């Protein structure tokens, strides 16, 4: 096989496409976790987004409604998590797991009549430029609007967290809910908003899969991407820009594995698939060893229940 320059361009383009759901879901989860809430329901919210996006596309024949609807359905399903953890003060880990289990089941139930229906072609932007420029064409052009949004999102998230007042509020709530509350910030409302935002992004990530990446509905089609997104947030030590880099690495591993399978390479593909998880564990060990490092990187109140006596 020849590795000419145009092939590498196409390869990079496909790595970018495969990393989009990871970027979207992880960026959403990052905001949620930065506010001190650990939502293990990413996989469940993504699969609900995937089926509602696809179902709305089939019913309304309108891709815009499908995309917006998938985000709304992510918001609705994450509202269950928000209500339980924030209003009824339930344990984050158990509630998130329940959300994933529930979401996978509900999506299969809702999607029963949508199995086997062919998807619709999603419009791509600048498709003429993609063909005319040799190397950069397939990298920069000919993608869906969701991909461009996904690649802008980490920078927007970074700006939001570091430069805006609201971002500071989110970080304060995550790092020290008690002092934030004493400053007059309504911790519960802030956390609700962050949870719902996370739900919207996970819904969009799911819709990207069922409408753009592999346009069809298959039961359990997120196939563990939600868990990888969750790992990615840790891998990126809760920093939005590193989420982008990590998503490209993890997405690259997926694509690499397909190509290696095709050319019959000797390294078992399962080892490559396991790499994101192993790398996340190593990163966790490295950042957790030093208590100062973990304080700098982790939202301090992550996963802890906040209760204020009224």
């Amino acid at each position, binding site marked *: 096989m020849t590795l000419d320059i145009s092939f590498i361009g196409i390869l990079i383009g496909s790595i970018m496409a495969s990393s989009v759901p990871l970027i979207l879901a992880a960026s959403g989860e990052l905001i949620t976790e930065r506010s001190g809430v650990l939502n293990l329901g990413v996989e469940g919210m993504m699969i609900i987004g995937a089926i509602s996006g696809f179902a709305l596309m089939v019913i309304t024949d309108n891709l815009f409604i499908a995309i917006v609807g998938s985000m709304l359905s992510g918001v609705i399903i994450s509202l269950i998590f928000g209500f*339980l953890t924030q209003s009824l003060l339930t344990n984050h880990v158990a509630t998130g797991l329940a959300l994933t289990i529930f979401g996978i089941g509900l999506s299969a139930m809702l999607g*029963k009549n949508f199995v086997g229906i062919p998807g619709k072609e999603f419009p791509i932007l600048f498709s003429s430029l993609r063909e005319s420029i040799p190397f950069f064409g397939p990298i920069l052009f000919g993608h869906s609007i969701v991909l461009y949004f996904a690649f802008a999102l980490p920078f927007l998230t970074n700006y939001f967290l570091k430069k805006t007042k609201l971002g500071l509020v989110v970080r304060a709530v995550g790092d020290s809910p008690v002092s934030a509350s004493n400053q007059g910030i309504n911790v519960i409302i802030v956390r609700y908003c962050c949870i719902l935002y996370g739900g919207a992004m996970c819904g969009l990530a799911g819709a990207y899969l069922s409408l753009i990446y592999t346009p069809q509905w298959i039961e359990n089609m997120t196939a563990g991407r939600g868990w990888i997104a969750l790992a990615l947030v840790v891998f990126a030590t809760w920093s939005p820009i590193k989420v982008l880099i990590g998503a490209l690495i993890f997405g690259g591993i997926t694509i690499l594995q397909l190509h290696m399978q095709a050319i019959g390479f000797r390294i078992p593909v399962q080892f490559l698939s*396991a790499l994101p*998880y192993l790398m*996340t564990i190593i990163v966790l060990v490295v950042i957790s*060893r030093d208590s100062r490092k973990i304080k700098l990187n982790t939202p301090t109140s992550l996963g802890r229940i906040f209760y204020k006596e009224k």
Partner: protein
Amino acid sequence: MIKIEKRNDVPMALYFFTPFIAIILTILGGGIIFYILGFNPIEALKFYFITPVSNLYGLSELLLKATPLCLIAIGLSFCFKSNNWNIGAEGQLTFGAIVGGGVALLFYNQEGFHILPLVILAGAIGGMIFALIPAILKTYFNTNEILVSLMLVYVSKLLLDYLVVGPWSNPEGFNFPETRQFSDSSRMPLLFEGLRIHAGIFLALGAVMLSWFILYKTYLGFQIKVSGLSLKTAKYAGFKGKTMILVVFMISGACAGLAGVGEITGPIGQLHRMISPDYGFTAIIVAFLGRLNPFGIIFASLVVALTYLGAETAQIFLQIPKYTGQVFQGMILFFLLASDYLLFFKVKNLNLKKNDLRH
């Protein structure tokens, strides 16, 4: 006016009563979902919860599915009671099955009474070793055990996948992703002719008795409970926190490993990709629903096993995907967690009655 107040003590009766509320709400919720999807809710629920257990074969299947759930949940109760969030039981189950299955494959063409005990022991040790990874990382590197144990689930599943398509695949198996069949000596003895229920159920019952003894009659059990209630008190009392974390993870992993080995030597009889329909995750629901109490867990494992079985029956009779079992499992946990609010808070009526003013 009403006011919500934190309770100082949790009433025991309410503590064990709320799981029943959760189950009833789940059945109601399931009925509503069936109605929305256009089924007759009463009939659908009947297919789900009554038809599957209305004959002897169904009852045997119920116990067959409850066995691994009960075993894993018993192990998890040690971790959860001491505030260690091991959510990777699915991985420990898989790794236990890999190690136990490896031993069974060594003896694939031999018979003998020594084989099954060796296979079971290997499975328990496998699960134990795998659970030690998050435990050691937590104690010595201060990592978050939730994330590590979760990541390891996928690592172990991929390892199993590699083994059954690669080095361990059946040489006479036409490249199917599965190993050789185990010899009869590596299989759990069946309890009744024609039913799939096997001797693994005694492992689960043994674990229940043993865990009750450890938790309520030994010093270790006391330490576990105290650490769960207050880490500060545990430290003040001089309990060895690190050792205890390792011990609870080892118990939990061994139980999950036993569950894995029980599946492959029981109903399955070989290794392949799909050895567990996420028993390790569902067992978390079982542990909660059973209130981390050994006898509560027996009851909860039967309830949750019924959702698996009901989903299979509903798939046949109503043509709905078997993933619907997970809708019920998710709902049980949602409602259970929500009803816990009643345990820790009480609603107080602040409206003064006329008589109150006279006193």
